[in-house]
């Protein structure tokens, strides 16, 4: 049960696809910084996350979403967490894997 974090925009396609390939059931993925662009309604994003293992929770750092003016564009399967929520997630998971 790992928390995965990623902070690069989806134009770093290999980073995102490799991260997704290592997800197992029960993991969580948190989009930080430029990676929040992977959560918005913009062409191919929904398809990128279509094939995940069951029971993978998807989170987006709310402050980074707001900073980029993307509040209205977040796709519905992503849950917003703020910085305090980020800390909570890190505490709840036995390990964190940062992709960058």
């Amino acid at each position: 049960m790992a928390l995965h974090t990623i902070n690069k925009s989806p134009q770093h396609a290999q980073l995102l696809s490799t991260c997704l390939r290592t997800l197992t059931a029960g993991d969580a993925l948190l989009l930080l910084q430029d990676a929040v662009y992977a959560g918005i309604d913009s062409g191919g994003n929904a398809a990128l996350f279509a094939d995940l293992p069951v029971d993978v929770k998807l989170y987006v750092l709310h402050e980074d979403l707001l900073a980029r003016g993307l509040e209205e564009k977040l796709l519905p399967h992503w849950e917003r967490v703020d910085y305090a929520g980020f800390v909570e997630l890190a505490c709840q998971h036995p390990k964190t894997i940062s992709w960058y």
Partner: protein
Amino acid sequence: MNRKQLSFISRQAPYGNSRAASCLDMVLATAVFDQQVNYIFMDDGVYQLHKDQAPAAIHCKSVGAALPAMELYGIEKIFVDAESLAQRGLSTEALLPLQMQLCSSDEIRALLAQSDHVFTF
């Protein structure tokens, strides 16, 4: 001290930035402290394993040449993502003669799941 299992995923090609060399340093330091290390090569990181590297003219030390030293530190084999090799059209013939285990995505996931800590480089 409890022995922990740590996985290091090296994803960058050698020489363009220092991540490959940094990862190797971390792996060796961790092994010196007698922890169980999984040294995993994915994406462009598999290029570090390419044979015939000759970086002298760009004033770099060969990453490939440093890898056999791992045996001295008790790291008997490295793990190589088969899909990353396939994406790059590489067969094991193009790689250095190191002890390596080719892994499917399932096997990579299993290594990460059983690790106490995972670092990406």
